[in-house]
Structure formats: C-alpha cells, structure tokens
C-alpha cells in the first residue's frame, strides 16, 4: 500500500506493519468508542500499572532562526525573547525540583549562535545534578552532537516531526533550517544511535489532515521500535493552541476523535508511552488519565524564565531577525513570550491529588542517573 499515490505513507521510508494496520482498524473501524476505551484502559493497567509519570518542561530560550507559521517563537513574530544563562537554567531547575519534579524536559528554539550545542551540553550537565531524569526537545542534531548531550546526562530525546505530509510541511516551515524534512525525520534514529534511552515522537495536530498524520506517526513509531529496539518509545498528539502569530489550525480534531486516537494508539502499541501536556484542558486530561496516557506535565510555563522570572532584564525583541531593545514603557514586569497558551493550569500538587483520587499513583522518579552508561 505505502508508496501508492494518496496513501498516508507515500514518500515516507516506513512500511505498513501489522501494528499500523491494527491502529487503522481501531481508529477508523466500526468499533464503538466505549469498548475501545475499555480495551485501552485494560492495556494501560496491564503494561504500566495504575501509575502516572510526571514531568515538567523547562524552556531555555525562545530565540529562533526558523519562520514557522504556527509557532509563537517564529523568527518574524515581534515577541519578547531571551536565552537563559546556564546559571539561570539551574535556578529554574532548582525551582522545579523543589515542586517535586524528578524528570525535566529542556526545551529550546533553534538558534545556533544563541543556543549552540556546547550550551545545551552545559545546561544538561547542570540539570542532571538535580534530576534523576533529563530529556531535551531541541532542533535535530547530528549523532556526535547527540552523543555529547547523552554523555552530559540526558537520557530522553523528544523530536516531533510536526507534520508527516511533505507538502504541508513545506508550506508551514517558510524559512530556516527546519525546512529540511528529512533531516528532522532521521533525528530520532540518530539520537538512538547516540545512546538516548527514551525517544518521543509526535505530530502537531492542525497542520494537515490529521487522519493521514496519525497513520504516518503510527508507522514511524513502528519503524523506530524495530530499529531502536532498546529505546522506550513515547508518542504525543499535541493539538495546536493559540500562540503569537495567531495561526488558525487547518484541520481541527474534535475531543472525541482525540480520545479515540489515544485509545487506538494504546491498543495497537500496548507498550508505547503516551504523553499528554497542559495544552489540553483539565476535564479532558482527567478523563484520559485512565485511558492510555502514561506521562503528564503539570504547572507548566512555556516561556524561558517562566518559573522564577530569570532573564527578564535581558528581554529584547527581534524585528526581521535583528535584535531590538524593549520600549521603555513595557520593561516593568514584562515576561518572555510563551510558545503557546497552556490550558490546564493546575499545580503539580493539584494534579497529583486528582490522580490519587482516581486511584492512580503519581510517579515522580522512575529513572536514576546511575543507569546512564
């Protein structure tokens, strides 16, 4: 099937495995959502127990050389920007550790000058002293660069393809290195070769026909499970949220379809982790706690310095890529601009209370730096 015109896997180096077919059956077949949900819950309990792993994102920088239509950090958006110093990152990390997190995800825009690999290595090294588990979500890197980051103490790599539809991808990524679809597509495998133990894949729902995107994601997961057989794979289906730039999703996905997708992935890939961020509202997150999701963030800030106010004195704007100081009248109390608006604003403590109320044990620590080879 794949390779034929119109097929969701057309032009992708993935084959349609049995698991992908199973995903399609569950997602698009006649099964009632309720019975699919029952199956998903049973599989989740069997494979992950009555537990939920918790993590927090830590934004390092919102500076970016890419122009992407949907992203708040897009180069052409005249937003307030800053790159935290490694000391400031450590301060934010300390704050998150104080809230109880033991698993942190370092996130950054792509900016080779402001956010070079040496900087990432340094921030990972400092974070690994405070967290048993450190992951990164940054632009795709080369294997040797990934290796340096693994050696500094990161064991998780998150790299969403955003869209598996080449035409939509080209349209959305207007300029900058992110235009290179294949460079990004190969990132997770390079990361695996470099020694990452947890690898997160995903699509940004809203850029292209999500039905096709989900099938392609399933094929990517299935492919990576074979190539990267020693890695724990996770997947996520972030739906576009309001952000600077005001991009409107092309193809919306209803809550019902979203829940069905989570359940279908759970049943087709019983051992793959599913991540749900604070993009989604509290009610939906509560409902999904027992239906396939295995990892959640809480109390997230999506701007650099968002937790402690670090870096505010260096905020600046970029106009067509050039740095411009803030206007005098907005310096007071201004924060860096967030990547997107979070929807579920509950604190980690509130979220864990809800989990416990539903008979799910919040797990903060599920890794140890002693495991890092």
């Amino acid at each position, binding site marked *: 099937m794949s390779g034929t015109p119109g097929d969701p896997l057309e032009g992708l180096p993935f084959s349609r495995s049995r698991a992908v077919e199973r995903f399609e059956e569950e997602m698009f077949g006649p099964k009632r959502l309720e019975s699919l949900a029952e199956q998903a819950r049973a599989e989740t309990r*069997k494979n992950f*127990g009555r537990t939920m792993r918790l993590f927090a994102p830590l934004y390092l920088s919102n500076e970016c050389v890419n122009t992407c239509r949907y992203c708040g950090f897009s180069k052409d958006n005249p937003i307030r920007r800053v790159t935290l110093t490694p000391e400031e990152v450590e301060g934010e990390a300390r704050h998150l550790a104080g809230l109880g997190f033991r698993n942190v995800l370092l996130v950054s825009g792509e900016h080779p000058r402001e956010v070079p690999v040496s900087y990432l290595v340094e921030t990972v090294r400092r974070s690994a002293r405070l967290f048993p588990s450190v992951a990164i979500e940054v632009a795709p890197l080369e294997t040797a660069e990934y290796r340096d980051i693994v050696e500094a103490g990161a064991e998780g790599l998150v790299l969403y393809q955003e869209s598996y539809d080449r035409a939509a991808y080209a349209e959305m990524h207007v300029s900058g290195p992110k235009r290179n679809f294949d460079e990004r597509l190969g990132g997770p495998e390079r990361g695996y070769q470099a020694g990452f133990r947890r690898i997160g894949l995903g699509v940004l729902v809203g850029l292209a026909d999500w039905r096709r995107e989900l099938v392609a994601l399933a094929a990517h997961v299935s492919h990576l499970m074979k190539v990267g057989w020693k890695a724990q794979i996770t997947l996520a289906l972030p739906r576009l949220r309001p952000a600077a730039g005001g991009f409107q999703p092309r193809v919306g996905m209803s809550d019902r379809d979203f829940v069905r997708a989570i359940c279908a992935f759970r049943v087709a890939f019983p051992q793959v982790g599913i991540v749900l961020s604070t993009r989604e509202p509290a009610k939906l997150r509560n409902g999904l706690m027992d239906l396939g999701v295995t990892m959640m963030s809480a109390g997230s800030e999506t701007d650099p310095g968002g937790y402690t106010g670090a870096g505010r004195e260096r905020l600046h704007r970029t106009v067509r890529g050039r740095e411009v100081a803030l206007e005098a009248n907005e310096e007071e109390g201004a924060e860096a601009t967030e990547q997107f608006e979070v929807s579920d604003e509950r604190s980690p403590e509130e979220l864990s209370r809800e989990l416990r109320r539903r008979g799910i044990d919040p797990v*903060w620590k599920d890794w140890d730096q*002693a495991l890092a080879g």
Partner: protein
Amino acid sequence: MSMMVQGLDPWRIGDREFRSRLLIGTGKFSSIRSMQSALEASGAEIVTVALRRVDLTGLKDPQADMLEEIDPKKYLVLANTSGAMNADEAVRLARLAVAAGLPKWVKLEIHPDPRYLLPDPIETLKATEILVKEGFTVLPYINADPVLAKRLEEAGAATVMPLGAPIGSNRGIETRAQIGIIIEQSRVPVIVDAGLGAPSHAAEALEMGADAVLINTAIAVAEDPAAMARAFRLGVEAGRAGYEAGLGPTGRTASATSPLTGFLDE
C-alpha cells in the same frame, strides 16, 4: 491459612530460611496503601523494589520514598536492577543500593528491550559473576533456558528466576517444558518470576516443583489487590501441598483403576 503455612516445609535462599513461597513485586500499585495491604494479605516475606524508583543518594527524597513504607523487620527488601541495559549498569545500581543501606541481596534484572522486558542472558551471567565475587546474594531473572540456569548456578547465583511469560503479560507458564527441565536439574531454588496472571498459574508452578513464585502485575492491577494477594497465597499453598503430597503421573488416555493385568496376581 496459617496452619497450612506451618504445615509446609521451610525453604532457603543462601543462609536465610523462609516459609512463604510467594514473593511480591511493588511496581504498578495505585497507592502505597494499596501495596501495603496486598503485602500484608500475601503473607510474603520477600518484597522486590525497583531501584530506579527509589532515592539512592541517601537524602531520603520524599518524592521517591517507597522504601520508607516497607518494614525491613517484616520483609526482606530485595532490590531489583530493572532499567539496567547491561552488566555495568546493573552492578553500579546494586552497589548504590548497598551504599543506601539495603541488604546485600539483589534481584538481577537486565532487559535491554523495554517492550517485552526479556532478560539479556550474556549480560546477566557477567553481572552475576561480578556481584557474587563482591559478596552479593544474587537472584537472576532469566529466560527459561536450562543451560543458562546451570551456568548461573555454577557462577554462584543463589537462585534462578525463569520467566513463565513476559513480565506483565498474565499469560501463565508458557515456558512449561523448559521450566520443567530447569527444576529437574537445578541445585539452587527455582522461582518462577513473570507472566503469572492467576492463582491457578502460581499453583501450577508449585505443583511442578518450583520452590516459589514472584507476582507483581496480577496483584497490583487487580480490582482488589489485597484480595488477589490472598488468592495467590492460597494458590501457592495449594500447589506446594499438592507437590509434597506426590501428584500422580498424567497421561493422555484413561487408566483403569482395576489393572488389566490384575489376573497375574490372582
């Protein structure tokens, strides 16, 4: 129930004697309280804890304090090295556990594949050799491979822990023929470790002559973990009692209770 337990032979691992033949794993429970009530109901004396879930820095991290909730006077806490992908990582974890105050006992789990969690035989043998030399009591989790079981025994492993089916699969003793050979040949206790989903599976393992079983998922994710723990305890006791009573041989055809050749004795 307690009368039955007392009626059963004690068994030993290394220099320690146990009466319960049910070991419990502590992952996947919905809460600490749910785990504690299951431990209580199971009558277990040995409890395994994943080192990656607990604080190994000695700082008593409240976000990873499961060890604080298990009474070391009631249970032997058996650290497991789950998460380790090779011998080096497992050895490092085992040493850290001792430094953090745990007993020098380790359930060696080295599974590079995070999906089926099948153990790596080569790394497991390597790690066993190292840890035995360092004075650890080593209980390796293995595939049901009789030759590997003998190699580990020769390397000084205190038990072997072959799997019935992949961890968490609840499929029962799919490796029955191989486990039969391991039990027949082994000079150390054989603990069937993974995949047992129902009390009848546990009974089957004990009837076959396994010394004990380890259960985690089937109890942790049951609707009522304490009730399921009790059920497994009964399954284990029934299986062991059946084994000690001497099970009759099984065959494919009926066998007459009045022998066909009885006339020869007339």
